[in-house]
């Protein structure tokens, strides 16, 4: 039982047991069959031989018997001396009496006294026969022969040979099973050991040794491939988890930064308001306070703009509106926007712009945004009095823009990471220069949308950094009418078109009232309403030639209001402008279908309104 258990547990012992058992059974069956056949054949041959001998003897001695010549008969029998196996022989006369006798030297006993009827008697080691001698139908007498068959010796000898053969065969079978073990069992054991190790140690880098090209080799290879797949997938999963965690961490940091950044401008604004309230008779202080409010407001608007862009990037809805624009104009608009801030921090700006007339197929607002983000970073991350270079050129079908500063630089190994969303090279929130950490990510996305690349280089922390943007611009030299790349963010309030009747419909009263105040200052007549039906009824009497309508109005949305206004005779030809927080293309399409002439996304820039009013 224990042996059986031991065999069951091991492929090696199984194969050996099978080989040995098979060999043994085959040998035994073979030996038994051979023995039975051999003994049978031997007996048959011996009986046939003895019968022939009796026949020959009978025929030779027939005359001696016929003429009762004992002497002659005895001489005939004496010839049997040549046959060592014959112990006794005799002739009997026709009447059954003993006629002549032969006994081999040393043989015990003798022939019976009387003849018996024809018979062959075979026992373990002797054959005895009585054979009548018949000539011419006359029975002349009987031959008696008794011979050693030697069957026992033969069988013993045969068994000896079989035993030797069996021992040899078993030895060969044992050697074969050893070979089989090497060829089959060992590779299987190797595979099994590898599998066990994987399960016990959870180590997917373990590999089974592939030592054969047969099915076991295939098995080992399959196992190894599976392990490789598993290892790769586990690695990917770990990486993905790590990336998710990092993204999560960045998002948390971003939220903290966002709160901080949104909170930051509020204090100066409150201070400015206080100044305005308390120093009414001091125009200089009042002007300073207004400047503070405008700067802080601009900062907040940019923050919220960035936030909206972040949401577009994460939802994959950021799209370009390409047109043919002059590269110099785009670069100049970004420069224009950053100049005041750079001046404020005392930076020296070194600028190199391309000549006018290089036309590129790009989204001017977004391209300008890329430059502005890079410039803004350079200004922010360089201590006051630094040096900033801004080079834009078209080289060999490529737009190349470089922004180089003498600022804090980028720590080694972070030049890729800084492009990740919400990434901050310096995580201390105390720095006043802190942004939301989306500027570079946004810039990269925008450059990629333009089919270009952006890269950062730095000699290390504190040693300045350089950002390089490359965007392919195939066949851009054609001179075509150029659209103004971007309006200045703020233009002086002096150049104002006047005398418009303007209807403002917006449920955000602060927005509506403040915008109304601005428009009135520009010399327009303004009417404010806070819901759809009120705006509609007001329009009939007020007859506006321009209407700014919020899309998300209560009780009647902006689209419906626009349709009703278009239906009214007094406003059928008025300029209708949709004002919304939602800048989706589908919304623009809907607005166009509802009858709007223009579409503005909050926060609405005064400059755009001025431009619109000038054109009307």
């Amino acid at each position, binding site marked *: 039982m224990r042996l059986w258990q031991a065999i069951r547990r091991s492929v090696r012992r199984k194969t050996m047991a099978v080989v040995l058992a098979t060999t043994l059974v085959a040998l035994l069956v073979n030996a038994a069959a051979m023995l039975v056949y051999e003994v049978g054949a031997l007996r048959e041959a011996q009986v046939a031989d003895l019968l022939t001998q009796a026949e020959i003897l009978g025929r030779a001695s*027939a*005359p*001696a018997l016929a003429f009762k010549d004992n002497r002659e008969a005895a001489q005939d029998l004496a010839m049997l001396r040549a046959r060592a196996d014959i112990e006794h022989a005799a002739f009997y006369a026709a009447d059954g009496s003993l006629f002549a006798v032969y006994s081999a030297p040393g043989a015990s006993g003798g022939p019976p006294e009387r003849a018996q009827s024809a018979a062959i008697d075979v026992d373990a080691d002797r054959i005895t026969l009585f054979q009548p001698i018949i000539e*011419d139908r006359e029975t002349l007498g009987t031959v008696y022969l008794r011979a050693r068959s030697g069957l026992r010796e033969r069988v013993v000898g045969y068994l000896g040979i079989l035993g030797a053969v069996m021992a040899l065969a078993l030895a060969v079978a044992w050697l074969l099973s050893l070979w089989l073990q090497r060829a089959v069992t060992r590779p299987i054991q190797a595979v099994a050991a590898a599998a066990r190790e994987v399960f016990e140690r959870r180590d997917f880098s373990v590999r089974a040794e592939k030592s054969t090209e047969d099915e076991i080799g295939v098995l080992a290879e399959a196992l190894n491939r599976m392990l490789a797949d598993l290892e790769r997938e586990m690695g990917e999963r770990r990486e993905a988890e790590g990336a998710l965690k990092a993204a999560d961490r960045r998002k948390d940091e971003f939220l903290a930064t966002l709160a901080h950044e949104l909170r930051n401008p509020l204090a100066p604004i409150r201070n400015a308001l206080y100044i305005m309230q308390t120093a009414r008779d001091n125009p200089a202080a009042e002007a300073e306070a207004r400047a503070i409010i405008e700067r802080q407001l601009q900062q907040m608007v940019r923050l919220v703009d960035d936030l909206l862009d972040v949401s577009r990037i994460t939802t994959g809805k950021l799209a370009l509106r390409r047109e043919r624009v002059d590269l110099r104009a785009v670069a100049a608009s970004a420069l224009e926007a950053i100049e005041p801030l750079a001046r404020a921090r005392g930076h020296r700006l070194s600028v190199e712009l391309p000549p006018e007339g290089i036309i590129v197929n790009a989204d001017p607002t977004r391209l300008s945004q890329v430059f502005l983000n890079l410039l803004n970073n350079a200004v922010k991350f360089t201590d006051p009095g630094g040096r900033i270079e801004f080079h834009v050129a078209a080289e060999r079908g490529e737009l190349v823009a470089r922004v180089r500063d003498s600022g804090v630089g980028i720590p080694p190994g972070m030049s890729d990471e800084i492009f990740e969303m919400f990434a901050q090279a310096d995580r201390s929130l105390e720095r006043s220069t802190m942004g939301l950490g989306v500027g570079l990510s946004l810039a990269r996305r925008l450059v990629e949308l333009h089919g270009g690349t952006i890269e950062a280089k730095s000699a290390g922390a504190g040693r300045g950094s350089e950002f390089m943007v490359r965007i392919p611009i195939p066949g851009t030299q054609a001179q075509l009418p150029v659209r103004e790349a971007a309006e200045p963010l703020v233009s002086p309030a002096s150049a104002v078109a006047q005398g418009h009747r303007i209807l403002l419909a917006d449920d955000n009263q602060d927005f509506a009232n403040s915008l109304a105040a601005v428009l009135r200052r520009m010399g327009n007549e303004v009417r404010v309403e806070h819901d759809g039906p009120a705006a509609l009824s007001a329009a009939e009497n007020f007859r506006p030639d321009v209407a700014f309508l919020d899309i998300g109005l209560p009780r009647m949305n902006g689209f419906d209001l626009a349709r009703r206004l278009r239906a009214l005779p007094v406003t059928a030809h008025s300029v209708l402008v949709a004002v919304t927080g939602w800048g989706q293309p589908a919304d623009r399409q809907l607005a166009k279908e509802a009858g709007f002439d223009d579409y503005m996304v909050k926060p609405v820039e005064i400059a755009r309104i001025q431009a619109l009013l000038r054109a009307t």
Partner: protein
Amino acid sequence: MKRSFTRIVVALLLLAPLAATGQALEREVKAAFLFKFLSFVEWPQGAFARPDSPIALGVLGADEVLDELLRIVPGRVVQGRPITVRRLYYGEPASGLHLLFVGRAAGSALPGYAEREGLLLVAEQPGALEQGAIINFVSVDGRVRFEVAVDAAERRGLRVSSRMLSVAEYVRGGKP
């Protein structure tokens, strides 16, 4: 005297059956031998009229042997042929016979049958082979044996089996 005479008479009376028995044995043996000879001899072509014609035996001057033959022969077949036996008288020709046994009593008649074609002439007297017999019974140590003249047999167109010659006491004129 009387007693010794009586003794002799008794002895003779006792011995007489013994002598008679010896004679009877010799008679039987010779008849049996004559019959066996038929198995070892080949007669020439034309000695028999048909394939199943009987082998004809004749006996001259040996009535006891004749009687014995008549007793053992009926119903027996040699070389596919039945066997007939008849008595021959002095001077009677051996026409139609295949074997003729001439007894000692008629020994003088032996030469008369000597040159007959196809006749196996058997005798039982010393020097019979010289007088033309082919087979002659002799007595050796009180046992009946026989001698064969192969040359004589050949002259008469007969062939004697070598197997029979192997047990003959003496063979004349044959190949060794």
